[in-house]
């Protein structure tokens, strides 16, 4: 038991050592598009669960500067959201 605890402490300390003031920006902000990576969900007008994440409470489409979606995917999204609206899904 004791040895395990020590190990965990060691791990923690090693994690802290990685954090420094001089680290590059990419560790601070996650600015990749969540829909462009491999294995990302397909943008489709039937996939309401996905579309609802990118719509405000009033039903407006959220701008890509807030959601960090790439320009190509944002175009796809806005088209499929409009289709879903027409079918009264959103």
């Amino acid at each position: 038991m004791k040895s395990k605890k020590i190990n965990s402490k060691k791990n923690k300390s090693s994690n802290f050592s990685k954090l420094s003031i001089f680290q590059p920006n990419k560790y601070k902000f996650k600015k990749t598009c969540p829909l462009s990576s491999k294995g990302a969900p397909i943008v489709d007008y039937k996939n309401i669960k996905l579309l609802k994440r990118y719509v405000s409470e009033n039903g407006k489409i959220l701008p890509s500067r807030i959601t960090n979606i790439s320009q190509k995917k944002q175009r796809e999204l806005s088209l499929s959201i409009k289709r879903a609206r027409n079918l009264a899904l959103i």
Partner: protein
Amino acid sequence: MNNYEHTIIARQDTTASQIKQIKDKYSDIILKNKGNIVQTQDWGLMNLSYFIKKNKKGNYIHFKIKCDGSLIKELEKNEKLDKNLLRFLTVRVKNFDLKTNYFLKDNKTNEK
């Protein structure tokens, strides 16, 4: 020949037999005009997010069709006149994904 996804919404107070009639009617039109029905999905009675012609809910029927563009014109011409339908939507797609049905789970929970 193109691939189309075609969805229609029927009124909330249509009975099950009427929905079957509607389904048969439009699949007949498709087959007469040399179209291929790849798949049909019944999404069932779902809540509309806003009122359409004083309807709160709607019966959704979804077709996946392989046909020419002239058939879609014919279909939509008939659907515009149909009083049992609220809306329709056709979308051209490159490939069908026949596996996923986003609305299956909702139906099961409703039945339970």
